[in-house]
């Protein structure tokens, strides 16, 4: 068993000085401290291995999103992590939102997870019955800043013996927590995408799905919820909208929900949680399972006109350009599998991504090609 100071020391290396973690709340901490540390170590070792394997990927553009850890995790097939990508949430977006009203059930499959932990979550399909332990919300913090001791303990409190699934991903949490605080990438030097052109695609729309895992009475929801539309003759789902983050959700009677319109992964998740909360408040035992981002759309402007006729001729096998049908050229990039819509004005729309890094990578790939067809 690892000695107590070790994880701290590792974290310290990465994150600067850390307060020792406060004792976990009494209701949680179902694993002993030692066990937690072992997992932490295990995870750190894995990360070290991953860092060697993972190629430099797109780095942090949005300072709010500590994407590096996420990417490392996602890119390494060896890590037998949950198949659902972990979505890291950043507290940056949540600065004005206090989600403490959200009970554990809704936030996580891991019961004892105190709500706000905006650090990271793992979605699993484990059952959770949660004791309502809660820690003060660290939501006001910016990601890149100091480790929140409470969130650290949160992560520890997440470990649940009964949950085999959670065991593996859980150790990541404390680590990702700590790693997420440093704005620098701890282990792998990442090549910033912007070194080629300084242009960063902005995310415009994220479509995600989540399973509330209970049958819903759509009529009841439509009657009692604000901003809900339900027209069973037209479509078999309730359409609900919230203003912050500005999104739309389609809620089906099976309990599945689609959330669209968010501008970042965290916002999408936050919005989905809010919808789940609404459903829960109406009396349904809603949970929050299998949150998954299905599609991400980004756009940017290369700021020079592009000669599409040349592009379609030289990249015939990837592009189709039918100006009388659609004013943009449709470019099907193979690696990463992204579809780009390229317009004469220089605007580029990228879609079909499951991860932010794919969008950045696709744009990096296309930019030199577009420069070659710049219309002087």
């Amino acid at each position, binding site marked *: 068993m690892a000695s107590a100071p070790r994880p701290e020391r590792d974290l310290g290396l990465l994150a600067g000085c850390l307060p020792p973690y406060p004792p976990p709340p009494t209701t949680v901490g179902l694993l002993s401290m030692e066990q937690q540390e072992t997992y932490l170590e295990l995870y750190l070792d894995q990360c070290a291995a991953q860092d060697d394997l993972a190629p430099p990927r797109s780095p942090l553009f949005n300072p709010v999103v500590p994407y590096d850890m996420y990417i490392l995790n996602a890119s390494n097939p060896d890590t037998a992590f949950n198949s659902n990508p972990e979505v890291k949430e950043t507290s940056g977006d949540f600065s004005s939102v206090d989600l403490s009203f959200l009970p554990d059930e809704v936030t996580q499959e891991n019961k004892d997870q105190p709500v706000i932990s905006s650090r990271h979550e793992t979605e699993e399909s484990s059952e959770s019955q949660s004791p309502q332990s809660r820690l003060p919300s660290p939501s006001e913090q910016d990601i890149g800043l100091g480790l929140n001791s409470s969130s650290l303990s949160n992560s520890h409190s997440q470990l649940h013996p009964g949950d085999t699934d959670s065991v593996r991903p859980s150790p990541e949490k404390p680590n990702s927590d700590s790693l997420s605080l440093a704005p620098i990438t701890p282990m792998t030097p990442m090549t910033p995408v912007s070194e080629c052109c300084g242009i960063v695609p902005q995310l415009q729309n994220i479509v995600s799905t989540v399973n509330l895992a209970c049958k819903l009475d759509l009529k009841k929801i439509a009657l009692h919820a604000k901003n809900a539309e339900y027209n069973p003759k037209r479509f078999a*789902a309730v359409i609900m909208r919230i203003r912050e983050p500005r999104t739309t959700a389609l809620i089906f009677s099976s309990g599945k929900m689609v959330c669209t319109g968010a501008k970042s992964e965290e916002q999408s998740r936050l919005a989905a949680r809010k919808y789940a909360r609404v459903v829960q408040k109406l009396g349904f035992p809603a949970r929050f399972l299998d949150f998954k981002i299905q599609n991400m759309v980004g756009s940017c402007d290369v700021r020079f*006109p592009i000669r599409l*006729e*040349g592009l379609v*001729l030289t990249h015939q096998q990837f592009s*189709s350009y039918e*100006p009388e*049908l659609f004013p943009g050229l449709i470019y099907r990039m193979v690696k990463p599998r992204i579809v780009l819509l390229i317009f004469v004005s220089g605007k580029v*729309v990228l879609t079909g991504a499951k991860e932010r890094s794919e969008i950045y990578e696709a744009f990096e790939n296309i930019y030199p090609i577009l420069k070659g067809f710049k219309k002087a």
Partner: protein
Amino acid sequence: MVVFGTTFFNFDSFIGKTDSVEIIGKSVFLYCYHIIFPLLNDSGRYSLGDARRPLHETAVLVEDVVHTQLINLLQQAAEVSQLRGARVITPEDLLFLMRKDKKKLRRLLKYMFIRDYKSKIVKGIDEDDLLEDKLSGSNNTNKRQKIAQDFLNSIDQTGELLAMFEDDEVDEVKQERMERAERQTRIMDSAQYAEFCESRQLSFSKKASKFRDWLDCSSMEIKPNVVAMEILAYLAYETVAQLVDLALLVRQDMVTKAGDPFSHAISATFIQYHNSAESTAACGVEAQSDAIQPCHIREAIRRYSHKIGPLSPFTNAYRRSGMAFLAC
């Protein structure tokens, strides 16, 4: 390949002269604008100025040709529909009419697939579109592809129609058009290019109601449905494109080089490749006229309709109307 007088109807051979390439580009690609002008009734678009604009007479003639051809096509499609006992003209009827010409049929199929694909992508981008799609029922994906596949499956006896789906051969005509466009755009400046792009975006499917009226659909007993209208719009566009392709070749043929004694015997392709500045200067004749003239169009149609060879009376089944269909 059709033997076309002295010229082999080989699309690859057309290479415009540099000084007239711009103008050719304009006249080729502004055709749509001009055809659609009466449909759109939008006089703001007329202000393009001097030789950049295609000749009014040419445009009127092309419009007339396209109109006649489409009306005839519609009538034949209506007949096919009636044979089936259907109440609307469906895309299947149009596909049936086109079954003879594999290349054109393939081009149409490709167009339909691209249309499906484009709606799929655009849907994913805008959340409103996504909602719209969900609301309208979710069997919209690849609907045109399904229609085409099911239909060709049912009429295919020899397997050659279905083979078209897997066929990845390059479409020469399309290739030629792409190359021509690329050549022309290379030398344009940004303003011209912007104009060019805008004119290329015009199509018959933009103002569907005007298109329907133009074809006088309301007076027909059997009317085409939505997808059939899309195909008709595409066929109209193709007809114009074909006409322009042919007319350009005819015009090329018509250029006489007074200084060259053998010009009547040499094909236009040869002239293209080997023409030098001297002989053009020596002719004293302007190498190319600025725009396609109505006479080019008429000659193109005449040659297209006049099939040479022993089987010519039997090759085109749609000549009852007196004019061979350019689009199928």
